Structure formats: C-alpha cells, structure tokens
C-alpha cells in the first residue's frame, strides 16, 4: 500500500511538472538579456519588460481590453443580476427554456459565436468595431454572472425579504438593502472571474479587429506570429501575476470550493 502511494505521489509530481513547468520556463526566459528568445537565458535583464511599454500597440490594445471588459462586465451585471434573481426566486412557465437561453453563450463554440458577431453585429447591424467588441464580450460574460449569482441565491434565506416587506420596505428597496449586501462576496467573485474570461478571450475578439482597434490577447497573438522575442514572455509574467492576485482575492472571499464546483 505504501508503495502504491509513493508511485502515485511520484506520478502526480511529474504531472505537475508538466502543468507548471512551461509557465516557469516562460517566466525565466522573460529575463533574457540578449535579443532572441532562448532557454536558458544567456544574460539577465529587465529590458523586455521595458519594451512592453515602448510598443505602442500593446499600450493601446491594453487600454481597449480594459475598457471593453470593464464596460461589458457592468452591462452583464445590469442585465444578469435581475435575471438571476428572477430565476432563483420564482417558478414560472418556460423557466427551463429561458434559463437555457441565458446559459447558451457558454455552450456555443467561441470561434463560431465570434463569426456570427462579425457577420451580424458588425456588418448587418452596422455597428462600429469598438461597440461590437463591447456587445460581444457582454454576451460571453452574461452566463458567468447569472450562474454565480444564481448559486449565491440557492441557499439564500428569502424569509428576510418577507421580513423587510412586512416592515414596510418596497420590493426594490428590499433588493438593494437586504438581498445585495448578503450576496456581496458572490458578486465580487463573479465580477473577477468574468473579467478574466473576457480579458483573456481570443475566440471572439479575433474577429473584431479593425484599424487601430484590437484587444490585448489578439495583439499578443499577432506579435508572436511576427516576432519571436521575450517581450511576450515578459507580458505573460505580468499577466500571471495579476491572475494570481485575482485568484487570491476570490479564494479569500469565497473559499476554494468556488473553483471546484461545477
């Protein structure tokens, strides 16, 4: 029995080397002092980190990504929180179908969704690229918002809502003063996860690039196809640090079970 465990432990260790090794390697190569990407680096320097800020396209697409993801997140919350509340609180005809519609953006392949956005939102509805990006990202963030808020409300004790009503509060007032404060951590976690998914998204953003407009991951993709220097490695490290930060905050707020629930 002990041997079995030791063998399994070794196997697991190797698997994690496989999972995390590449990320470690890319982090190390980001400190390359020379001019081409190689591992192990010949010399060490921060110059590729500086380079990020020299490349104009990185800065402007970063700004675009932030704006699109934040604005999309806000719209997703405005549309999704009331919907999640309605779906959790009430039973009604057609609930299954409506729930299905709200969940469907996750089920449709991103690369397909992006194409239909291009074909219809950009071309048929004739909306500018920036706006189309904003709309597209809202669509993909909406299911996340709804799923997380719904699960926060699953174990919610709605009798405190009734208590507030019996004391004279309006339905809207009750929602903001009683329901929202008690699902606060769920909302924050939902926002962070949705933001990460949107910021990192390639499959739909790749269709909606125009003169001077593009999202950050797409810019990274373009850069990699043309240059093979450690700039992208440096960007990767910075992104990983931010991701780790987000994860830390979500874990503090919601615990580890938040990630393992399906």
């Amino acid at each position: 029995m002990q041997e079995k465990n030791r063998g399994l432990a070794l196997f697991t260790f190797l698997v994690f080397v496989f999972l995390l090794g590449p990320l470690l390697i890319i982090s190390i190569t980001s400190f390359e002092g020379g001019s081409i990407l190689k591992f192990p680096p010949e010399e060490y320097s921060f110059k590729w980190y500086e380079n990020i800020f020299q490349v104009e396209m990185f800065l402007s697409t970063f700004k675009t990504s932030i704006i699109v993801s934040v604005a999309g997140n806000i719209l997703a919350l405005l549309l999704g929180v009331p919907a999640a509340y309605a779906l959790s609180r009430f039973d009604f005809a057609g609930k299954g179908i409506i729930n299905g519609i709200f969940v469907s953006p996750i089920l449709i392949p991103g690369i397909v969704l992006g194409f239909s956005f291009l074909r219809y939102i950009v071309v048929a509805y004739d909306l500018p690229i920036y706006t189309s990006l904003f709309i597209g990202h809202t669509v993909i963030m909406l299911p996340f918002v709804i799923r997380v808020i719904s699960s926060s409300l699953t174990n919610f004790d709605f009798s405190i809502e009734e208590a507030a009503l019996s004391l004279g509060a309006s339905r809207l007032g009750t929602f903001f003063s009683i329901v929202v404060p008690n699902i606060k951590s769920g909302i924050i976690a939902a926002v962070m996860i949705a933001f990460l998914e949107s910021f990192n998204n390639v499959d739909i953003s790749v269709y909606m690039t125009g003169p001077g407009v593009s999202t950050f991951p797409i810019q990274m993709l373009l850069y990699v196809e043309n240059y093979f220097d450690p700039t992208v490695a440096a960007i990767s490290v910075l992104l990983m640090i931010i991701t780790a930060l987000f994860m830390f905050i979500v874990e503090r707020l919601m615990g580890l079970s938040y990630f393992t629930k399906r």
Partner: protein
Amino acid sequence: MALFTLQDISVAYNKKEILKDFNLEIEKGQLVSLLGPSGCGKTTTLRLIAGFLQSNNGKFLFKDKDYTKVPVNKRNFGFVFQNYALFPHMTVADNIAFGLRLRKVPKAEAVKRVERMLEIVNLEGYGKRFPSELSGGQRQRVAIARALVIEPDILLFDEPLSNLDANLRVNMRVEIRRIQQELGITTVYVSHDQEECFSISDQVAIMNKGIIEQLSDPATIYKYPATKFVADFIGFKNFIEFESREDKGDTVELSKNGRVFTVEKHTHMSPNKKVGAVRPDDFLLAEWNETQVLPSNGIPGKIKITTFLGRSYQYVVSTPIGDFTVNKEMTAPYHVGQEVVLIIPKDQMVLVE
C-alpha cells in the same frame, strides 16, 4: 366589535385547495391561536392576513376597510418568523430600527424607541451585536422587538418557538403573553403545540384541513371539545360509538351492547351526538371479579397491556365494548390479564359526534 374579519376566503396552491369559504373574526386586544396539525391551513391563514398570499375569493376586512388587495408592505402588521429572519448584515439595533427608518422616524426618536423595545424584551445593551452572535432565544426576542417597535395594528406569529429547546419555549411563551397583554396588541399566533396555545391564548381556533373545528377559549375546548377531531387532538384517546341516546332531564342515557351509561348534561352539550369521548386520566379503575356487583357506569374488563410512563402507568383495557387506554398513578400496578372494572364518571364523558 371585530377588529378584522376574514370573509369567505378561498386559497388554492398548485391546484390543491387549502382554504375554502373560510371565515374568522378577531376582536381587538385578543390573542387568538390557530392550532392544528401540519397541513391544516393555519400558516396559510396567517400569511394571508399578513399579505404574503392572495386569496382566490373572499375578503379581508380590517377596521371595516377592505384590505384584500392592500400589498404586504402597506399593511403595518408585525410578522414574527419561525426562523427569526433577522438581517444578518445589520446589528440588533439596526434590525429593530429598520421599520422605523422606512417610516422616516427622526433619528433621536428612533434611538429612544429601539432602546425601549430592548428593555421590553430584556435585551438591554445588546444593540451593537450581530445576529450571528446571539443564541436562539435572543434572536427570537430581537425578531419580536423588530415587529413591535413599528406599533403594528396586528401582531402575527408563525410558530415562533419551534426552533427553541423545551425549557426556553416555556419561558418565551410567558414573555410573549406578558408583552402582548401589557401593550394590549391584537395577536394571531400559529402553532402545532397544544400546551403552548392553551397557556397563552384568549381564544383558540382548532383547524383541520382548512376548516375551523372549534373556536373558543382554552378552558371550554379543554373540557368540552366540540368534535371528534378536536377531542382526539387534545388528548381524548377513547371513543365509544353508542347505539342509542335518550335525554332525561338533567342527564342523558346512552346504550351500547345492552349496557347503559349515564352522562350529566352541561351547557355546552349538543343534542343528537352519540359518540362519547373520555380522557385516559378520567377513568376509574378497580380490581373486580364477577362475584362482585357491577357499579353504575362500569364495564368489566381485562388488562391487556401495561406500560410504565414515568409519572403514571398506562393500561390498555379490553372490554366487551372495545379497548380503552387508561392512565393511572399506582404504586402497585395491575398486571396483564388482571380482571378489572372500568368506570366512566358521569361528568367526565363528552359527546362529540
């Protein structure tokens, strides 16, 4: 004059009828309990009064105004929930002040009223604590304070004590009654616990399957249950279906299997009823054998089962007219098979159907 009236109310849920043509009148200042088993409709009635439910037909009149369509947050009725429903993100003081803030009561006055309320429920000094820091009994008192501070026209309790342990329940119900009487506030109280309701109510409505079987003061119900359901619910375990009845002045004679039993008439006795009910504690039981004379209202019997209950012994006695459950305190209990005589005292049988 009735403070509020439920008139011909019908409520159905998921195609199941819970209340049909239901009527109830409550006088000002009274504490009325709705008592009954699960599913009898008592909670539905309470939530209807509060405004959480709408009836399909019928009217709810309050002080002669039609309140049927008035939404819950405009009724000014205090509601105390079974699981307290305290706002977890607010302090005790903020919980209690919630209703006052909505009514735009000035801050200084609100603070005073909250303090007064904390005194009334014996929770002085607890204002800054959070619900999670309180015990069950304390939370219940905050819930009561929160409902009272808004000076409601009616106070509604939904099984408020079921989540507390036995000792606490007894203390809390005394508190609730004390506060209710002190403030003279009309109260409707729902529970499935008979002792609880009987000990604190002015009137009790015993409900069964959406109908009020009997509405009366506790003493009357206790002594003179009106129907078989009520009798069974409050502890009359023995029922005898008599074959015939003859009214004779002050008494009634009932017969079964050729045996005749005499029962005293009382003001609450209804004519024509022929089913008698007797409490296990009210029988007289004595050793007997066939050589002895049979006392009046007595039947010969044999002990079938003996159970020790702690305070008393419980016997199942089999007789020619059926098996009966009898409770008796005894130092020397009867044994199985013993021949006894079972006597029904003239004033201890109630006719219920």
